[in-house]
């Protein structure tokens, strides 16, 4: 409920504290591995809190045919990965995660059935000028939509992720005292990666079983340049449990605690502690079918000057910086990169 007269102010609530619990995140897919599982601990609800890593655990993925693999912990700890030539997810099999922590607690996930994802039928975009945000400034952009066809059988659940790659010549930058930004070039081809973690985009076929899912909004392309915007979209087929988990997460992230908002409830996920049922554990281990598609959004029809990022000055000649493969940057050419 928003009215002209409403206003939002900061508020200092009394703190509540609970013992820390294990948080599990990870999934196996029908795409090539390696797959990783991350273990952390809950922290007090505060913007200063840190979620500590859970190191030294034994993490195992197994399927219903008896195949299994013990994951190896990656440095600096807390993240456990399968081998590059190790287990691979196959549609139709079900997968389970078992964890034994250093403290001796045993956790287990429910068995998750991996279902193949239907192909993305169409990715398209539409130019629009919208107003919003704090300043209510007019904002140009391109809304990207997805169409797909839901299989006849009921019980399909979807989650969409997107990844944007942008070619970059600068691999390191820092701000100078006068406000200008100086940087160093990359030693190889390099792409910056942009994702949105909090944009949880979900749907189920409960309302549309067997029909087309149309105009599923994926993201909005900003007018930061007139060049084409390269976007990869991943359509995930997830289980009902995973759908409900993510839906609760989305509900909690977007909940404004209003009178007409659904009351918040605890999000548990599909794991439980085997040796002590009262020990809480949060998170989800998923088995996910994936289909992918890409689109290049033509931004040449934007009006006026694009809202460009500050220019980074690279002094010439200068040393180059290695393009490290990470969550935010990659030297590997994106799958459908054409230009």
């Amino acid at each position, binding site marked *: 409920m928003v009215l002209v007269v409403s206003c*939002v102010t*900061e508020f200092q609530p009394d703190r*509540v504290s609970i013992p820390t619990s294990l948080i599990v995140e990870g999934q196996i897919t029908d795409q090539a591995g390696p797959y990783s599982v991350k273990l952390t601990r809950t922290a007090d609800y505060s*913007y200063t809190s840190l*979620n500590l890593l859970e190191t030294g655990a034994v993490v195992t993925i197994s399927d219903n045919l008896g195949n299994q693999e013990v994951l190896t912990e990656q440095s600096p700890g807390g993240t456990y990965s399968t081998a590059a030539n190790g287990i691979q997810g196959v549609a139709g099999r079900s997968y389970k995660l078992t964890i034994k922590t250093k403290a001796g607690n045993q956790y287990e996930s429910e068995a998750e059935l991996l279902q193949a994802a239907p192909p993305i039928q169409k990715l398209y975009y539409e130019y629009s000028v919208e107003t919003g945000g704090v300043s209510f400034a007019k904002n140009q952009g391109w809304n990207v939509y997805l169409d797909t066809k839901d299989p006849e059988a009921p019980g399909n659940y979807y989650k969409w992720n997107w990844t944007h790659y942008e070619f970059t010549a600068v691999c390191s930058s820092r701000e100078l005292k006068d406000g200008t930004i100086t940087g160093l070039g990359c030693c190889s081809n390099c792409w910056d990666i942009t994702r949105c*973690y*909090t944009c949880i985009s979900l749907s189920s076929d409960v309302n*549309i079983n067997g029909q087309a899912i149309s105009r599923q909004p994926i993201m909005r392309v900003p007018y930061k340049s007139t060049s084409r915007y390269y976007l990869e979209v991943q359509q995930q087929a997830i289980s009902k449990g995973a759908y409900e988990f993510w839906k609760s997460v989305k509900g909690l992230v977007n909940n404004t605690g209003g009178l007409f*908002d659904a009351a918040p409830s605890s999000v548990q996920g599909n794991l439980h502690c085997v040796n002590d049922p009262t020990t809480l554990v949060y998170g989800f281990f998923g088995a996910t079918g994936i289909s992918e598609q890409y689109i290049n959004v033509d931004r040449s029809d934007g009006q006026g000057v694009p809202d460009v990022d500050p220019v980074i000055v690279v002094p010439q000649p200068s040393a180059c910086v290695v393009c490290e493969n990470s969550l935010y940057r990659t030297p590997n050419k994106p799958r459908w990169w054409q230009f």
Partner: protein
Amino acid sequence: MRFLHLLLLSFCLINGAFAQQKINPNGPTFSATGYVKDAKTGKPIQGANIVVLNVSKGYVTAKDGFYTVQLAPGNYILRFSHVGYRTKQDTISLQKTLFREIVMEDDSKDLEEVVVTSEAPDRNVRKIEIGVSQLTIKSIRRIPPLMGEVDIVRSLLLLPGVTTVGEGAPGYNVRGGSADQNLILFDDAPVFNSSHLMGFFSVFNPDVVRDVTLNRGGVAAAFGGRASSVLDVKIKEPDAEKWSVNGGIGIISSRLAVEGPIVKNKLSFLAAARASFNDFLFKIAPPNLRGTKANFYDLTTKFKYQPDEKNTITLTGYVSKDIFKLASDSLSGQEINASSTQFNYQTMNAVLRWNYFMSKQVNLATAVILSRYRADLSSPDSSNAFRLESGVWHRQIKSDLTLTPNETHQWQVGVSAIDYLLQPNTRTPGPYSNVLPVDLDRERAYELAAYIQDEWKLNTNVALVAGLRYSALLNRGPASVRTYQENGPRQDETVTSTQTYGAGKIYHSTGGLEPRLAIRWSVGEGKAVKAGYSRLRQYIQQVTNTTAALPTSRWHLSDQYTKPVIADQWSLGYFRNTADNAIEASGEVYYKTITNAIDYRDGAELQLAQAVETQIVQGSGHAYGFEGLLRKNKGRWTGFMSYTYARTFLTMDSPYASERVNNGNPYPANYDKPHTLNVLATHRPTAWFSMSLNFTYSTGRPTTQPAAIARVAGVLVPIYIDRNQQRVPDYHRLDFSMTFEQNPLKKKRNQSSWVFSIYNVYAHKNAYSIFYKLSPASASDAYKLSIFGTAFPSLTYNFKF
């Protein structure tokens, strides 16, 4: 009307002249003659006393208000007085025959409105029932209004024991009951949604309301069907003598009402319309709100036909409609992509009532009542267009017979039959839409009730009202009823079989007795002790998982899985009137148990659930509290102060974790607000000016705060443990209003008034809600949303002619 008035006046003049000649036989006396009239309405006042102060002679006005005083020539002071009017003095110099018209002002400005409602001023200590509050529309108009809207439900919030979950929230909570546990009757027809604009204003047009009675303790046996309270809003009787028009213009809504006789003293009629034209507010709003549309209207009509002294037939009609469009799908609760959401909801009521006054001992009142509430939610986007519709149809016939065999007993017996048809949400896709249609099974039932009650005056000090009501619900087909595994929670996965029943087949019934008792013991002059017990059974519930119910929230009948809500309440109070009933004080305590209280399961989805029992839980509740009231009824300053201490706890326990709330431990209900203080003061120095101040304070409502944070796939997820363990900050607010009326002495026919008010004078940012969000851009993790975070002035113009 003006024409009629002139005629009347000239007739009076002729009559006066004639009278004057008649009473002047001989001798040196002159007559002072004239009419005594009501300053506001112009009606003649019969039986007014006239005392000539100098000579101590007394006279009384005749039926038409005419008076004649015969005196020797000289100077005199005449004093005019009558119950309900301010005493008036007139100085005359009698040298010839004088004609003086005297207008007298209603003293309701001084006295409390009980006088106006023809109730004794000591009603507080004389009436037998406990926990009953009555507000007249006049006293409601004194309360500083929000945005100029005189509001019935908002005024109830000043009464002890009545709270709300938030400013601008729909509904209200009475003594630990949820909002759907209040039976709201508008001239006998139940109202299923009492709010306009999602909860900011109530659906009752103040121009047609006569009075409002809230029964929160001693509910009479004639009422039933809801577990907490009965709000009886009565529409005034159309004026059978003359026509009048009144209305008002405000920033939210404008009103127009007309009433008068079609056949004088036989058939009269009243119609009142109210509509909002506040879209312009959104047009000047920030751009992201410009798509918002919020409009409402309501129309109330009443016919009264009195063929003879024994029979009265009234027909009441009421229509109300709301449109509320939001430029996002934030409230729809549907997993469908939408660019905007529109709520439409409407109420249509009709009541035909026949009152047969057989003799002084016997009165029979029969009513046929139709009430329909429909709500829909729609989204316009072609490929995802849908319309979600729901409705409640209530058809009732009831008859009440009152027998007064003697002074000590008054018996009342009655029967009632309700036919319910509930349409839970039905989703219809648009013509090019991919959304699947959903059609949930209709719910049908009969609710039958019969009662007997005796009001018995045992002696001069002790009186009681004892009643017994039996009510039953008969669910009827067509229906399909699920059977669940015996040892497991009720969920879609544990259904073992489904049984279908044909149309008209009664497949389930439930019912029980509802005893009611109220005793009053007068312990001295102006002192009374009262006690009461009541049991109320409720068969129709609104199920929701939001703090306040949406207009589209689902109504659900009791059935084999959802048991009727039963509330048992014990109350005890002490009532004291002093200073000739000018000061009223009372204190009441109550304890209440709620059997089969309803709450939702964690993560419940109620809108489109095929079986409600898979989404809700039932448990027990208990509520207790103290309500104190101090009131000043007379003088230039009037007002009251009320304090309430109230607690409400619910317990939802089950062998299965998914059917437990907070692990089966008691927790405060959403509307548990321990302390509430209300103060209203009105100062009326003259008949044409008054000002009021209203202060309100209450403890913040419970809320659920995250206990920890987890980071899952880059998303910071708050972790909630137990429901309702924290509270939003306390609420307090001061309002002010001023009313300028025309001097009733100067202008008699056309009246107008201006009301200027300021809501939230000191601009306190009260918390509507608290929400939690972690953002790297901000050093805070909790935020407070205030709906009326600033002082809100408004101006309303009212007229009557």
